[in-house]
């Protein structure tokens, strides 16, 4: 703690003015090819941002579509409806299947898994580490283009679906995707009308991209730490991305082979997973969840890393329990490999297996809670500034806590069995995966936006975006906990009236009310996220110039100008304690923080303005 922070170490106290307008990575080279073929991790990060946000928009459109469909329940099969209605309903059921599948698959494989590691990890990790680039820049570029290839596969699914619905043209191999993002056999291998082969190949390709990114980050963290950057001076975001890389490397290959086998099963019927051919569908579930449960932590771990950074920076306080947070990341990574069976409590596992998986599942709560308590401890007696990144981070804690605690209901066998495949599950994993990952992603985007582009966004609009998204999210998913516990199944295009509740002197059918509230919430959430996008675009166009260190944080990326030069640092970075923020003082002239020469002699910590 008493170590001289890095900002006092080198002769670079004038980093702001010497490079502020000069050569940076954005204008270092010009021309479209200098972007498409760049080896600069920062540019690759921005290209990932374009591609991943495109995918996010597609997934979001499907979410809006399926919530809109649920405004009116479709008639049930055989419940006093005419054959004509039944035919019409059947078509809508199929459409609904495509909507929720594409929503899930696009969001999971194209947005949530790559979002934080590929965008923010690529941009921030080498700089936080004090390195000039990732260990294998060419591999990094390759991994981006592999991602784009996978994106194209998924776009071809969409194209097939559009051609089918709009023009009645059927592409070979099926159109769209209607298996659910989990591709469960035997539906996916023998019955689905979607193009399962294209989807699994696309996911396989995306997995390859993920593996290469993981290998790259792992080697970078191991090999490219400069002088002074010991393992325990690494910022917690790096610890988180490092743990993520371990999961990516260990779990994704298993998904790869699973998807290849499924592809072969679908294409020629090899009889591994399809029970009709003597295969074992539960084996598919084991394989799938052996990857896809760790994949949940691929989504959440880097998100937690962002929260650790933001919490410390906006509480103006050293992170509380650094080592605990670091090791909890690693232990989550380890535990993530031991809990996949909790997705299969009702798939025919033996009771003993179920009990063991249930027990290990509960133990994941320990490192997760360690993190939450440490964040709270960081805020305690801190000088908290509720800037936009901090708001998103606090939203993360709210959502993650609800999502995590409802996870205990699902980890416990007695409550999981009735709750399986209800909206309760949907609400739970949206809180944990989507709510937490998305909110942390937004926190990170707002936090590093000034560093990326050298521009400040409009704080008011940013806060509006947060509140709309936060309220919208809770309004969307909290009713689903209630409806799920009342027995509304997931993935159904229809629903009955549900238990009648007496409220305001009226009898209200709870499922109808719940679904309509959720739909309104989804629109609000979409509005909030769109507003955030508008906020960024406006900032790019006419945002104020950002200071090198607008937040007063002390990780190494804030020591270099915004936007950073091509080689990240014009000096040799020397790492100190990443969370010792005493060496910075606020300068209203630039609305940022500059290094304070008197910091060493001043007794009390610097405070926020």
């Amino acid at each position: 703690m008493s170590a001289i922070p890095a900002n006092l170490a080198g002769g670079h106290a004038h980093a702001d003015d010497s490079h502020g307008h000069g050569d940076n990575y954005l204008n270092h080279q010009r021309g479209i090819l200098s972007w498409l073929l760049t080896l600069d991790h920062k540019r690759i990060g921005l290209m990932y941002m374009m591609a991943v946000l495109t995918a996010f928009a597609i997934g979001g459109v499907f979410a809006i579509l399926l919530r809109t469909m649920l405004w009116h329940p479709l008639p049930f099969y055989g419940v006093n409806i005419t054959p004509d209605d039944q035919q019409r309903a059947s078509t809508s059921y199929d459409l609904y299947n495509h909507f929720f599948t594409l929503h899930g698959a696009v969001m999971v494989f194209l947005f949530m898994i790559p979002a934080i590691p590929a965008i923010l990890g690529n941009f921030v990790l080498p700089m936080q580490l004090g390195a000039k680039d990732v260990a294998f820049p060419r591999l990094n570029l390759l991994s981006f283009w592999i991602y784009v290839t996978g994106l194209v596969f998924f776009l071809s699914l969409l194209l097939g679906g559009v051609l089918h619905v709009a023009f009645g043209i059927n592409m070979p191999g099926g159109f769209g995707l209607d298996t659910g993002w989990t591709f469960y056999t035997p539906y996916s291998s023998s019955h689905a009308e979607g193009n399962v082969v294209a989807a699994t190949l696309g996911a396989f390709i995306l997995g390859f991209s993920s593996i290469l990114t993981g290998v790259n980050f792992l080697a970078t963290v191991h090999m490219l730490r400069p002088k002074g950057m010991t393992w325990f001076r690494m910022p917690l975001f790096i610890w988180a991305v490092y743990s993520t890389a371990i999961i990516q490397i260990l779990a994704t290959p298993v998904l790869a082979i699973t998807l290849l086998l499924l592809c072969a099963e679908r294409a020629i019927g090899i009889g591994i997973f399809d029970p009709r051919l003597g295969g074992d569908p539960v084996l598919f579930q084991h394989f799938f969840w052996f990857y896809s449960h760790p994949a949940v932590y691929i989504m959440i771990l880097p998100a937690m890393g962002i929260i650790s950074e933001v919490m410390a920076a906006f509480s103006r306080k050293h992170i509380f329990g650094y080592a605990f947070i670091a090791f909890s990341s690693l232990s989550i990574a380890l535990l993530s490999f031991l809990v996949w069976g909790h997705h299969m409590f009702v798939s025919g596992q033996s009771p003993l297996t179920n009990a063991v998986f249930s027990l290990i599942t509960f133990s994941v709560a320990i490192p997760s809670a360690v993190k939450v308590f440490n964040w709270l401890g960081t805020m305690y007696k801190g000088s908290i500034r509720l800037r936009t990144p901090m708001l998103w981070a606090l939203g993360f804690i709210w959502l993650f806590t609800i999502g995590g605690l409802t996870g205990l209901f699902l980890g416990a066998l007695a409550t999981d069995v009735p709750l399986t495949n209800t909206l309760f599950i949907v609400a739970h994993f949206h809180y944990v995966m989507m709510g937490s990952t998305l909110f942390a992603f937004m926190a990170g985007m707002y936090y590093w936006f000034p560093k990326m582009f050298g521009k400040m966004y409009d704080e008011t609009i940013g806060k509006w975006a947060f509140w709309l998204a936060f309220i919208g999210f809770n309004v969307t998913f909290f009713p689903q906990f209630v409806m799920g516990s009342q027995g509304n199944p997931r993935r159904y295009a229809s629903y009955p009236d549900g238990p009648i509740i007496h409220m305001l002197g009226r009898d209200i059918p709870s499922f109808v009310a719940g679904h309509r509230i959720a739909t309104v919430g989804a629109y609000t959430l979409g509005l909030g996220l769109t507003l955030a996008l508008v906020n960024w675009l406006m900032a790019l166009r006419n945002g104020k110039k950002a200071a090198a260190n607008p937040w007063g944080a002390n990780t190494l990326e804030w020591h270099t100008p915004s936007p950073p030069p091509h080689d990240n640092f014009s000096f040799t970075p020397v790492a100190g304690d990443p969370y010792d923020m005493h060496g910075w003082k606020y300068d209203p002239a630039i609305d940022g923080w500059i290094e304070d020469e008197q910091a060493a002699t001043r007794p009390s910590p610097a405070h926020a303005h």
Partner: protein
Amino acid sequence: MSTVESNVADHGNGDAAHAPHDPHLAHHFENPEQQYASAKLGMWVFLGTEILMFGGLFCAYSVYRHNHPDVFALAHEALNRWLGAANTIVLITSSLTMAWGVRASQLGSTTALRWLLGVTILGGYFFMGIKAIEYNTKWKHHLMPGSGNTYYAWNGQTPVKGFFNEEPEGEKTAEPTANKSEAPAVAEKTAPQVAAQAPRELPPGAAPDGNAGQPDHAVIFPNYQTPKGIAAKFGAADEQLKLDDLNTGDKQRLYTFFAVYFFMTGLHGLHVLVGMALIYWILLRASGARRRLWLVPAAPMSVGLFLAYLGVVCGSPRLIAIGVAVAAVSSLWAVVRYTIKAPRLATSEGEFGPDYYTPVDLVGLYWHLVDLIWIFLFPLLYLIH
């Protein structure tokens, strides 16, 4: 990238003074040692992911073999273990020459390196050639993966006449004739024998997927099954397992062994091809050939591959064979030319020496992994009984 180095004032804490102009040193590394260690770490981790990927496949193999031991015991008889053994020897030898090549590059013996790399690639050709012969034989016996297989369950008429239940033992290599028409007769003959043990038999005229979703009797009630197959023949190893020794469910699953076989060896063969391409790339760099000559062999290779692709599209095995042959011969020609260092190609002594041998080392590691996987595949698939 190297142009930006001049912008950087203090480059690497004084270590920069050590070999600052090394042409192989990327700008973000401080010294060649760090670069070499990073590359090696990255490669090992990547090999780890490869092992995990094949690990999933081995896991599927174990599950299936555990569920249907008789299927594996009988079906593997269709594989030629002598060809498999030959391929094992070839791959191990090529691993030796590869390791030797790495050593040669470390010692700076460029001629030895070229020849050793050339021999290693030849090993790859040999392996793939034998594999092609094996695949071709399976195809002729209608033992391909998927629904073309004689023993495909969806035929609903198992066991049909094929490799394992042809009357004359000596005519196994003959083309099976019109399987479908003879199938009912064979089924009639075998059905009574297995009726007692068979958990269920497809009713005549049932829909092809009439048994979808039915539990597998052999898995759920293992104790109710009269010992048959290898369980009954345990201890009598000389006795050959016959098709009739299998229960009905297993007879319908014989083709799955071939699906597993083709999937595992096919994925492995793909890795062999990638390895050969990588070694070829190393050979080009080691030969010191002019870079613009590198693509010359690519032209006939592309033509060959395109012909093969056309063959796949048109369903013409002859065209596939011609295309593959063109690609193989033209690439082989290139390998030989670069190995003996044809005078027109040579410009320098090649890139690798004691100061820089990272690519040779890493490609070598990859090739050893390919070899290692085969060493597991061979006994698991060929030497079951």
